[in-house]
């Protein structure tokens, strides 16, 4: 045990190891936080998409990406009727409500979309709503009116008639400065815009509430995808999934590989021959196509993939490497001594041979983790990712399918790729430093 502690102490002498450990620590911390903050079932539910995200913009880039470039792209504003006071006029058989949904708009860029979500409560008789847009310069624009039966979404941006009338898509046409010179390059009229809802209720009891969503062009730390999903969910949940996959696959393959190699070396004869032949056959089997086949024909569950990866990884080139390391150890006097004082086969393999190569193995093992993380991501990019889990690979897969780079959504590719790289970097830096600590021959004097 002390040897390990000493090794760790030595690690402090390597700045790359410290940095690597910090990176790993960060990733582990992020994983723990994620799992606590967004429980598994909730994450799956969120990632399935749908109504959770209706108030998020489509394909918005991260806020920091815009601010770093000195931009002032708008963030999403949600104006709720609960926060404003409505003017009420009673009349026989009903009421008239005037709900001003005002917001201060200061960005020089237009919002990406305008939507209004209406909810009607406690009435059987659908009220009539007129939508009036009041611009900061005092002008008014009647958008239209309609009966609202229940919960309804009014997609102002997709109002073709309005678009024709305004000569621009509505979220531009409504908010542009009419005095701006070039009509093909409209400018935003900053100030307080108000969407006035003129509601006529044919009932005394009912009420109407509304949310006006002025969708921004930037969102949060990670941005959103084509389904309005906040990428943060996938980036965060991708961390524990990637780490767990990498760790389990690395542990599973190295430990079993090592034990099997040790068995071959110890028993020799047909045991060794069988293991060697199996390895040789397995080494020429291409792993990725097999995974693709399993994924296509059977299931893309991450656990199945993990199982197949470990199973294929056991009889890998590692067996040859460990065999080469273990062969001289088999002849070590201490093994002969152990046999001479009565140690059995299992004990010799597990307690005398395997621990001897562990120090050499730890660095290899640490550098192996990101390989499996990348493998999992690659599978997801190929469309063989777990169908329900949010992972980095899935984000990349979506980005690829939506031609993210072509459309200029760099963030969509860059953030999962950066996380993958950080993982690789962290483990690699730690692994190489460990290699120097545990294999002093590599240490230059």
């Amino acid at each position: 045990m002390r040897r390990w502690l000493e090794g760790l102490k030595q690690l402090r002498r390597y700045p790359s190891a410290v940095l690597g450990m910090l990176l790993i620590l960060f990733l582990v911390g992020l994983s723990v936080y994620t799992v606590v903050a967004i429980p598994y079932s909730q994450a799956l539910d969120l990632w399935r998409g749908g109504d959770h995200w209706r108030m998020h913009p489509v394909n918005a880039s991260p806020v920091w990406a815009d601010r770093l470039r000195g931009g002032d792209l708008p963030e999403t504003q949600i104006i709720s009727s609960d926060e404003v006071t409505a003017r009420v006029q009673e009349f026989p058989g009903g009421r008239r409500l005037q709900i001003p949904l005002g917001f201060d708009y200061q960005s020089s860029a237009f919002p990406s979309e305008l939507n209004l979500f209406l909810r009607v409560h406690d009435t059987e008789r659908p009220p009539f709503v007129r939508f009036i847009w009041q611009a900061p310069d005092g002008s008014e624009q009647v958008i239209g009116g309609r009966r609202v039966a229940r919960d309804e979404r009014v997609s102002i941006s997709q109002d073709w008639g309005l678009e024709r009338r305004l000569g621009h898509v509505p979220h531009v046409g409504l908010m542009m400065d009419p005095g701006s010179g070039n009509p093909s390059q409209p400018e935003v009229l900053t100030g307080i815009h108000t969407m006035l809802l003129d509601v006529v209720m044919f009932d005394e009891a009912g009420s109407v509430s509304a949310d006006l969503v002025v969708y921004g062009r930037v969102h949060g730390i990670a941005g959103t995808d084509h389904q309005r999903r906040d990428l943060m969910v996938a980036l965060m949940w991708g961390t524990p999934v990637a780490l767990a996959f990498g760790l389990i696959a690395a542990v599973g393959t190295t430990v079993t590989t090592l034990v099997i190699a040790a068995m071959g070396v110890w028993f020799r004869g047909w045991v060794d021959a069988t293991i060697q032949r199996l390895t040789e056959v397995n080494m020429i089997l291409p792993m990725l196509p097999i995974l693709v086949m399993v994924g296509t024909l059977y299931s893309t569950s991450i656990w199945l993939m993990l199982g197949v990866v470990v199973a294929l990884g056991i009889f890998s080139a590692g067996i040859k490497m460990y065999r080469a390391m273990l062969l001289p150890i088999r002849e070590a006097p201490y093994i002969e001594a152990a046999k001479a004082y009565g140690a059995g086969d299992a004990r010799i393999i597990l307690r005398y041979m395997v621990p001897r190569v562990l120090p050499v193995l730890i660095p290899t093992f640490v550098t192996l983790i990101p390989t499996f993380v990348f493998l999992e991501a690659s599978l997801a990019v190929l469309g063989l990712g777990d169908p329900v889990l949010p992972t980095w690979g899935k984000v990349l897969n979506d980005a690829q399918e939506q031609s993210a780079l072509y459309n200029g959504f760099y963030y969509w590719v860059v953030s999962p790729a950066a996380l993958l790289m950080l993982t690789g970097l962290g483990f690699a830096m730690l692994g190489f430093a460990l290699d120097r600590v545990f294999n002093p021959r590599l240490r230059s004097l």
Partner: protein
Amino acid sequence: MNRDTTAETLLEARDLHTWFELRQWGFLRAGHVRAVDGVNFALRRGEAVAFVGESGCGKSSLARTLLGLHRPTRGEVVFEGGHLEALDKRGLKTYRARVGYVQQDPYGALPPFMDVGRILSEPLIIHGVRDRETRQARVRAALEEVRLTPAESYLSKFPHQLSGGQQQRVVIARALVLEPSMIIADEPVSMLDASVRVEILRLLRNIQVERGLTLAFITHDLSTVRHFAERIFVMYGGRIVEQAEVNELLDHPQHPYTQALLAAIPDPDPDNADREHAVPGGEPPSLANPPPGCRFHPRCPEAMAGLCDRDEPPDFEPRPVHLSACWLHR
């Protein structure tokens, strides 16, 4: 000192052969290496004997056969009345607790990833000493017996933190911890510094005498033997060529090989620089293809044509209790 050297026989080898198969291209049988080729001797309880010979004479293979690490090809080993070659797995395990093993390279003989306490506990764990306290006590006793005191300060040391001499003491302690009745030491000091060698040999000898153990001490160095063994077996080409009580053999060597060996060993003496040794020419025989007749005859200055190169010499007794396998004594 030698309480009952005349008494009971502890271990007896009868016509013992250990051959290793030679293979060509991995599967074709290409003959045998006759590492041990017809060896007879009996070791008494409580005596220290030395097997002496050059590398490749089969002495280490003999040691491993006696330890049950190689199966004898032919012949038998009788230990405390039981036949080694007839033992099943359990019997062999029990036998291994009765025979301790001290190896040549002390650093290699200790697992580098275990501390001394663990190293010494291993044999006890394997042989079912479950109680931790008992184990600790026996480990401590063994360390004290090899004069690694205070024992506590060594328990948590790793082999690389010990000097060569200390490492070899740990190896000896490990051989003792199961309280064997015999210890086989294969070149126990040849890898150690000259000044430590004497210390280790004395320790082994003292323990052997105190415990009344049988010590089979395998060495290539005749000069150390006089003070640390009672009988000597000289081996050459897989056979024992001469055996006698230690002073008898060193003072009156009978076999030409023993004589050459003794003549080649210098005592520190400034006159050495002026004289050349009479060294028999040639090389030790190949054990895969030994010469017919006496194995030493190709190098022997006194070889008799037509006899030594044809017939294997039997053991003669040219002096009382002194056997020599050479036709000269005919």
